């Protein structure tokens, strides 16, 4: 399993500098991406999911900076430290598209409205290969066919606004797959789409993961998507991974109070309407005035003095189930007792 490691993020910290204030958007994020597996990053709005994805692609805006940490691509020709590469230099450009590709939340705005879909796909292909325009167009048509876009010969010459939302996202995926990347980063790829289309897009991604043996980083705030898509899950809160592990570990034995609260706050399909849904109490703190210590402490039922004093370290149990909480053992014990009573 170790060999499958393709991307390793270690202790990544990213700050935003706006109006002379500093927003520590990421404060030590670590995770691994493996070939043929999907890692889902979940968390509420503003917790830093997109910043994480953009940091990997070096697409962060100018007012932000990677403060510390490593993003290591484990390529066949050795490791590449992504965070050390010049942002728009030759090496980084080669990685983007060839090694890792990204699809975005809103396929309408992510495609340039004044160029045909074919033009935008060809551009990607021609940036990374020696193909001429004609050959590139043929390849684009092939990719569109593979991604289930009907009438690809015609579609390739059409503009994004002539595509439906779902077709646009398929075109985006086709473009992302153009150079057979090893990593696909999808930042809430279906938020702008309706539920049936969402299911189709996920189907397509699952298929690609199997056939291309790709590593997928899927960002979402939907636990339902996690249950359906994820092999591994990382739960983020206010710039930290608070818990991570396999999908079974996280969904069946959540150990961080935030994960537990998150799971209790969403309805589960098939449990009827008498579910005990509990919204997480309190508010997400202002990112510019972060609480000292554990970020979740002000909203946590288990918080004690130590939680407010410093950030808990990552503790690992059950081989790779990580949790960042001072009280996780106690919480686990409580839960076992509760289960026992039932």
């Amino acid at each position: 399993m170790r060999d499958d490691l393709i991307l390793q993020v270690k202790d990544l910290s990213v700050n935003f500098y706006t109006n002379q204030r500093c927003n520590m958007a990421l404060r030590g994020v670590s995770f691994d991406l493996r070939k043929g597996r999907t890692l889902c990053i979940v968390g509420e709005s503003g917790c830093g999911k997109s910043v994480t994805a953009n940091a990997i692609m070096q697409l962060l805006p100018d007012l932000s900076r990677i403060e510390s940490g490593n993003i290591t691509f484990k390529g066949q020709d050795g490791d590449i430290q992504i965070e050390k590469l010049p942002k728009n230099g030759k090496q980084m450009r080669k990685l983007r598209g060839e090694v890792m590709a990204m699809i975005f939340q809103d396929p309408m705005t992510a495609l340039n409205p004044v160029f045909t879909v074919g033009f935008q796909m060809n551009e990607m292909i021609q940036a990374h290969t020696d193909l001429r325009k004609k050959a590139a167009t043929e390849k684009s048509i092939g990719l569109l066919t593979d991604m289930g876009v009907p009438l690809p010969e015609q579609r390739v010459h059409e503009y994004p606004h002539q595509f439906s939302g779902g077709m646009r996202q398929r075109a985006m995926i086709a473009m992302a797959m153009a150079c057979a990347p090893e990593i696909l980063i999808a930042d809430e790829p279906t938020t702008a789409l309706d539920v049936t289309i969402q299911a189709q897009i996920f189907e397509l991604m699952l298929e690609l993961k199997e056939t291309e043996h790709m590593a997928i980083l899927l960002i979402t705030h939907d636990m339902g998507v996690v249950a359906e898509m994820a092999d591994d899950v990382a739960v983020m809160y206010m710039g930290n991974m608070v818990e991570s592990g396999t999908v079974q570990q996280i969904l069946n034995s959540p150990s961080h109070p935030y994960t537990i609260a998150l799971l209790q706050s969403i309805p589960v399909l098939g449990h009827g309407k008498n579910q005990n849904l509990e919204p997480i109490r309190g508010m997400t703190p202002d990112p510019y005035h972060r609480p000292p210590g554990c970020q979740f402490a002000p909203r946590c039922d288990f918080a004690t003095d130590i939680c407010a004093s410093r950030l808990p370290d990552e503790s690992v149990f059950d081989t790779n189930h990580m949790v960042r909480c001072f009280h996780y053992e106690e919480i686990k014990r409580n839960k076992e007792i509760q289960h026992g009573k039932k």
Partner: protein
Amino acid sequence: MINFIIRKILALIPMLVVISFLIFLGVELMPGDAVDFMISPEALSTVSPAELEALRDELGLNDPFIVRYFIWLANILRGDFGYSLQSGVPVSQLMANTLPATLELTVAALLISTLLGSLLGVVSALRKGSIADNVLTVAGMIGVAIPQFLFGLVMIVVFVFNLEWLPVGGRMTPGRELFFQRLEYLVLPAVVLGLALTAGVMRYSRASMLDSLNKDYIKTARSKGLKEWRINLIHGLRVAMTPVAVLIGFRLPMLIGGAVVIEQVFQWQGVGQLFVMAVRSQNTPIIMMIAFFSVLMVLVSSILVDIVTAILDPRVKLS
């Protein structure tokens, strides 16, 4: 596309008829009439009212308004734009003598402001916050605010009297009429005429470019591993162009109006000078012709805007 253009041009016709009527009405409402200006005040005392009436009759000034309008319209359709009330020269010939000069001036000003304005705007946007950007921003504000005749006079003082690089005015030296020999006459008036538009285009293309560079498709383009110049100049600029083209189209009439002033300042023998002369002597056939022509230019430029927008933006429906 051809259909689209033809439809636009056909839609012009009713508009032109309405406008011709309004122009005719406007001239009608001006105080006095042509006869008052044809005869000098000294001569007026020696002419009897009966003779004046006869002259009015002869010029057709006593017919009912509507009748005169339709006679005028019919003449125009036959290509007869009337005669100058002073010299008797056909108006069409006067226009033919002056129009090329004005077109030369406005086209040059348009080229300068489009090319220079968008170039500076794009550079400004790509170097946002740099010294160059700040200097250009201030220069742009001055360029929009400064009156044209003042800028024209300053330029004349600097380039003609102090540096002695360029001729003070006029359009060409007789005998030296090659393109490049004429250019030195054209430069100053064209730059001065184009200044306000250049500044406007610069400010607008900077804003439009910055807007475009902030869009999601730029991030997509970058995530594909494209080169920076390609991201900026193909993806960024291409989208930023449409609003700038629209702005230029809508500001075209400003150039036509500005030409009246600039032609005076630089002694440029164009339609603007003809117009000023005609207004002073209430030479109605000329005034009407020029007014009509200016309106036509405005309408044509709005059609051009539509066509250019349709070419630049595939989302614009041609129907």
